[in-house]
Each structure stands twice: as C-alpha cells, then as structure tokens.
C-alpha cells in the first residue's frame, strides 16, 4: 500500500504523516512536491497540516492552485481515498472537494491540545476499522478550525451521514464545553458525497504512538490500508 503525502510550500506536518504511514504502519510512503502533476501510483493521498503558502489570504486558499491539485482531483473522482488533515482539510474546503469554510476559532486563539472526537461514520476509507461512537483522543493545533457552512448545507451533511467526526467530552457527549473552536454542530471532520474524501481538523498522525501520549489516531491509517486491501480483493474477484 502506498501513501502519497503532498508537500506544499509551508506544509509542516508532511514528515509526521510520512512517519506514521512508513515507520509506524510499515507501509510505503512518498512525498509529492506540489509542483508535480502525478501522484506516482499512490493508493492513498494525504494533504498534510501546515500553513501552505503561509496561509496568506485565507487558510488553504492558495494551495488549490498548485499543479498537483489536478491529479488529486482526478484521483478523488476515481474514488481514491484522500485525507485532508488540518491545513489539508482547509485546502479541501477551499478547493471545493468538501463543502463549507473555516472561521477563526471563537476565542480567536490558537489551540494546541488533546481533544476527544467521536467517530460518527464508519463507511469511509479512514474510519472503516473504527466503531460507530468510538471516542478517539487526538490533538488539535489550529487557529482557524471553526467549521462553518450555511444551514442548508449543514442540514444536508447531517442527513446524508457525512459528518465523520464530532468533538465530544469523555463520556461521548457533544457539548459546548467539549467544542474547542466553535465549529457548527461540533463538527471536527466531514466527507464528500462519494465518501472517499475526508477532511478533519484534529491530527491523527500525531496520535500514532503511545510515547506521544495517544495511539488513537492510528486507526485512520489502518482503516485506509484495510479499505485498499478490500478494494483489491473486490477488484481481483
């Protein structure tokens, strides 16, 4: 299984995703520079965290013009699994892969801390191995993670089961207190209609080893591997 980690100028969690895929999970991984136009046969694409193009103008706004994004769009259209983490999520929003936009955190502060998210949907390539309602302890690190979409869009996301992760407390309840940034309905991550493109604000790649305080994030990477294996079986069958 090969993970492609797209590197934009200003990406800074690229190494972390690569490390998780390659050294923790033992899969193949390759960095893809944003000026390239091919994903080089990758099975899974990760848009990592960071501050692509300085996050100038708006977070993620300029990265969508990078040459590689054509290949990512093509890959996604064919049903390939794409995971946008933090800044990668912001890029997916700006590029129109996913609906909505990011606002500044409601207290206007950058937040770096462990939060708990509840897995709402397991029918995506990144949550396949998780149980519905499972709580994951994963860090966030962002200043603009306050997910917003017009009411009708949120309604649509909810009714079509496309909210994949939600901030919750230790008991799994979605509360105002457990919501670190003010995101509408406590939304921490969503997927597209075809369910193969997932974006989330928390950093699962930072929670893949016990030594770092949590290994709960590993399940997203393991799910991707399982999803691809399944697809491989289906393809050969």
């Amino acid at each position, binding site marked *: 299984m090969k993970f492609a980690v797209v590197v934009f100028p*200003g990406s800074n969690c690229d190494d*972390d995703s690569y490390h998780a895929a390659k050294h923790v999970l033992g899969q193949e991984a390759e960095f893809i520079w944003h000026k390239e136009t091919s994903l080089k046969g990758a099975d899974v694409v990760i848009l990592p965290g960071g*501050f692509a193009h300085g996050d100038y103008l708006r977070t993620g706004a300029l990265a969508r013009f990078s040459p590689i994004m054509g290949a990512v769009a093509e890959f996604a259209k064919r049903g390939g699994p794409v995971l946008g983490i933090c800044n990668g999520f912001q890029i997916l929003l700006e590029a129109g892969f996913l609906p909505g936009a990011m606002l500044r955190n409601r207290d206007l502060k*950058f937040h*770096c801390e462990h939060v708990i998210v509840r897995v709402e949907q397991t029918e995506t390539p990144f949550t396949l191995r998780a149980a519905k309602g499972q709580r994951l302890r994963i860090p966030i*690190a962002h200043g603009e993670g306050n997910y917003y979409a017009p009411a009708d869009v949120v309604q649509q996301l909810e009714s079509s089961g496309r909210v994949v992760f939600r901030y919750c407390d230790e008991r799994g309840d979605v509360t105002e207190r457990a919501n670190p940034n003010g995101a509408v309905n406590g939304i921490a991550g969503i997927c597209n209609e075809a369910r193969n493109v997932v974006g989330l604000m928390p950093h699962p790649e930072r929670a893949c*080893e016990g030594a770092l305080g949590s290994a709960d994030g590993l399940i997203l990477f393991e799910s991707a591997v399982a999803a691809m294996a399944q697809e491989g079986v289906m393809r050969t069958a």
Partner: protein
Amino acid sequence: MNDEVLERHGLTREEYDRIVRALGREPSETEIGIFSVMWSEHCSYKSSRVHLKKLPTRGPRVLQGPGENAGAVDIGDGLAAVFKIESHNHPSFIEPYQGAATGVGGIIRDIFTMGARPIALLNALRFGPLDGPDGVRTRRIMDGVVRGIGGYGNSIGIATVGGEVAFDEPYAGNPLVNVLCLGVAPANALVKGTASGIGNPVYYVGAKTGRDGIHGATMASAEFDDRSAEKRPAVQVGDPFMEKLLLEACLELMQTDALIGVQDMGAAGLTCSTCEMGARGGAGVEIDVMHVPQRETGMTPYEIMLSESQERMLLVVKKGREAEVERIFEKWDLHASRIGEVTADGLLRVKDRGRVVAEIPNRALVDEAPVYNRPVKRPAYLDEVRALDVASLTIGRPAADFRRLLASPTIASKAWVYRQYDTMVRTNTIAAAGLTAGVVRIKGTERALAISTDGNGRYCYLDPRRGAMLALAEAARNVACAGAVPIGATNCLNFGNPERPEIMWQFVEAVEGLAEACRALDIPITGGNVSLYNETDGRAIYPTPVIGVVGLIEHASRTLTRAFAADGSSIILLGEGTGELGGSEYLKLVHNRVRGECPSIDLARERALQALLARAAADGLLLSAHDCSDGGVAVALAECCFDTGGLGAVVDLTPELSASHENLVSAATLFGESASRVVVSSRVGDEPRVLELAATRGVPARVIGRTGGTRLRVGVAGAVAIDCAVAEAEQIWSGALEMFFRRTAA
C-alpha cells in the same frame, strides 16, 4: 565629525578616533554606520567580553563553542545537538507581537545555518505584575508576545516544548523575551559562518531589503525613555512562510558539498554577516549593493547595509557550483542573488554601482572592536535587602497561603500560554510544555533530549553570584528530573546599563558565579547572548541570567515527568531543606518582601543529586520526579498531583526551622525554597534501592509519604498543615492565569 552625528550612531569620541586610526583616514557616512552597528554593545559585546572569557566552554562533548551561529554538543549516533538562546527584549516591548515573532525567527535561523534541523523551541519570559498600575499594559504585552511566539513557531512548524514565565515589578517597563532553539545535525557536517576561497561567489537569499530595523542593534544598546515610541519604525515584521522556505532550501543545499559558509542577516544585517564571515575565514568580502534585492526605492548604501529586514541569509558557495545552488533555491520559489565575492585582501568592500562606498578591514570591525573593562561597585541596596528577620513576620495559616501561592501567576499553570503554542508538531515531543523540562525524542535512535530554561531574577537581585549558580543548577536539575544527563548550556544574560558600576558589578558577579557552577557541575557553556541596557527611565530590571541546559536521555522510554504515576507509590524527598525563606515567592506574595539571603547551594551535593536522578531513572527505579522551586516543597507536591486525574498524597515533613511560632515553622518547611531538592515517587519495594543509591552518593533522602486518595495532605512533624482536595487545588492552579485575560477581551 560633529558630536550630533556620533550621538546618533551611539559612538563616543574615543571610539571615533579609533575608527580613524583603523582606517588611516576619516570614515565616510556609510562607514560610520557600519562601525556604529558592529561596535554596538549588541554586536561587539564590548562591556561583557572580558568577563565572558571566564566561562568554561570546552568539554569532551563540545563540537562547537561560542563564536559561531550556535553551539553544538555530541549526542552519539553520529549526531549533534545544536542550540542557542537569544533575547529579543527591546523589540518585544515596543511591538510585542512582531518583537517576539522575529525573536523566534532569528534564533531558528541561527540553528539551521549550522546545518541542523530545528526540532524544539523554548522561551523564558518575564513580565511585570498582571494587575496593579501597569496591569493593562502588561497584559497587552504578554498577550502580544505569546501570540507572536505562537504565530511564528506554529507556522514554521517547530514545537515549542517548554520554557518559563515569571512576573515581577522590575519587568513592568522592560519585559524579557528570551528564545531558545534546539536542532539536530550530523556531527561531522556542522556548517560554519565562514567566507573563504578567493573568488568564491557571495549570495544573498530570502526576503528583500527594506528600511525596517535600521539601527536595531544600536537600539538594543540603549536605555528606553519616553521617546522610544518614536523609534517604532525600527521594528521588523516577521514572515514565517519565507523562513520556512529558507529553512528547507538551506537544509537541502547542505546535503550537497557546494556550500562554504552561511550566516543569517540578524542584528546589523548585511554588515554583520559580511564582515563576520570574512573575519572568521581570514578573507575579504566584496559586494555591490546594486545587486541586493530591495523592497523600497531609492535606498542608500548606508540603509541597505544597516537594514535589519528579516528572513535573509548570506551564503558563500564554491565557484563553479552556482547553477546547482540557484536551482535548489528556485525549487523553493526563492531567488539567490549573487551580490559579490570573496577576496584576498581581508577588507569589507562595499560598492554602489561599481563605486566604492566603504572599505574597512574585517578585523577592525570584528576582532578589534573596543573592549571595556568597566568599573564595578557593589550596590548599596544589598546590605539593606539582605537583612530579614523572619521572627518579625506575621504568619497566617499555611493552608490559606498554600492556595494563594497556587494562584500566583509565577506558580500557576501556564496552560493559557502554551495552549497557544504548537507543542507537538514533528511528533517528537515526549514531555510537553508545562512539565518540568521539555523532552524530544531523536527519531532513528533510542535517545531523547531534555531541555529546560531557568533563572530567578529575585535571587540574583539579592545575590547575583549565587543567583546565577542557582539558575544553572535549577535548569540542570530540571533536565535531570526528566532522567537526563546535562551535557551543555547556553546563557542569556539580561542586565541593566553596564555604564553604571552597580549594574556592572551585578554582571561580573553573575558571570563568575555561573562559571563556578559550570565547572562544578561539569556543564560547558556553548554560546548565548548578552542583553544589556534593560532599563526604562533609569529603572533597571532584576539582574536576570537565564540559563538553558540540554540533557541527554539514553533510553527515551525511560523519560520521567512531574506527575505521580500510580496510587500507592512511595514519595521520597531527595535533598534537604533548611527553611530558607529569603527571596522566596512566599515572602513576596504573602508578605510583600523581596529580602533576605537567597537559598544557599552546595554544588558538589547538587551534582551528586543530578547523577543520582539520572542513574535511578535509567535503572527504572522512579515513577516521577519534580524539582522543588517557587513555592517550596508544598507547591512541588501539589504539582506532582496535578494532571493525574486527581490522585492525592499523604505526606509528613520534618521541620526545617526551630522557632517558637508553630506557623512560622510550618511556613518555612512548606514554602522555603532551599535548593537541590527533588520530589520523586517509586513503586513500593523500590524505595530501599533509591535510598541506598542516595546514601552512596551522599544525597540526603527520606520517604515522606505515599500517593493515594483524592486529597493532598501535608503535615509538619505530624501536625496537618495542608489538607486540600486535589481537584480544588488543581482548579485554582489551572485557572489563575486565564482569569487575568478573561477580563480584557482585546
């Protein structure tokens, strides 16, 4: 040359005469500017140099001592830890966000120019009180500084893993922002800031040059007064995105062997980088300012040479490799401009469209800068403040004082601060900010590095010599508490105006104290920074040497943190106190006094204690370790209970003072700040081995209690002095700082 011009450049008449002698003629306007920044206190260390020589800088692990962009120590596996601390006090006072942000940017450049990948940041901050007459301004400054540090570090993607924040009146008009960066480099491929090889091209890479920051170095070498606000244009604006590109491009270039040397254009910009690189390589450097990329039109050579625009680097590369070098920078959307070349004549020659506008021997600027052995005088205040009659204090109930201490901003949780920092990016952080020391693992090895900064200005005010010893001892002890062996230190010496003999006395005492402690603890100083003139309207800060210590942990999995790990563990106090209240947080907070003798220190015992900690941690005998500092053993015990989910402890302490007043005995025992003490916990059954190890090393050690329950109960000689639910104590401690900022939204 008239006096007005000299004053504007911060030069004395004697210094001017010296310039004339060095050149053998009158200097041009541009040359005066160049000399003024290179001979400023900030660049030349003219007041401190004679004393800094007293610091031990060598050791078997030292790969690079002071004099380069940063120091480096060998950490095994063919790797070096590269680190340095630097101040950005003055700019942070004038414009807190940008001042702090560019401070972070500057120290990061110092690390990656050495060929190291930066992996951790720490910052030591000192502010005035958050309430009181300057509270509003102080909160605004602190908020800006914290946002600025986060804004830069978070963006560029380097984890901020530690540091400290303390509050005291003398910093109200002069906050301290000291920033430390740690990186890892191949030990055999450290890059130097050297220009050599006649004819080799000199490149300029990074942001364009503007008029910002002109005379920043001279600003950092003068006191503040009411007119400082007018100097606002001297503040630079940071661009972490540009620096991220520079960082990646430079590290990629360093994989090749096309590079001769590189230096950041920090203080004194193009001037400093050209002449220092030339002086180190024993060569000359010739540049033409017409090739320097400019952001503004009509800039004079004087302005271009003195600009302190951020995110710029100067490189010397091998002749014939130009295309390769340019290609790497272009990949990162950076343009490398060839601005000159290395020459044989040892001169810094600056041309403007071919016309020579400055021609100065590099040595005159760097090695032959003036050196002053300024007069010293023991300050008169010392005798007065050192007297402390504890018997005269009206002592209240320790339980109430304990709660007050937990809410004191200096002691309270700094979560409000470090939650705004990315503490984990690059997934190396084992122990994050807010714990005893920051610990980062070294991927691809078993090892980890622990790092801590410390420095108690109050102690140094009472006794700069001993205060500096205590600063090094505490930083090293914090690193040892993580299970590390201290292997190197970096210092940031923050003082007032050195032209005042009393300030100079403080400085000399502190440096000598630090030197003695470094020798006794066998920790070499590999570099650092001196920040003088920290005064506003004639009022100086406390003398504040901030010491950063790096320690090596052989097995990252054996890293210890502060928090008690399990119910029913034995709590052991290593070291013993003597009820020393002088200079303590308790005395300041509860009795509003900054007096007495600061805690004594036996450096041999301190060293034994640290060796004991490293050994016991490596042997897996300890579950947690935490240093006793501000607020004494009582606060240390409370902090051990925090972040455990409310695990309590029952402890009984030996009285440390014989006095008739029972409350005084309790206060001194609970809140006294005697040095060289650590609270550790171990599994029941392991404590005899810990005590035995301690005994063989001559470290006093005693089992003082056990973890368990949900309350912290501390007795002194059997009488309960503190009995508090951990949840309540933790709420006080964790919410105190935020309360100050909730009041003012903007």
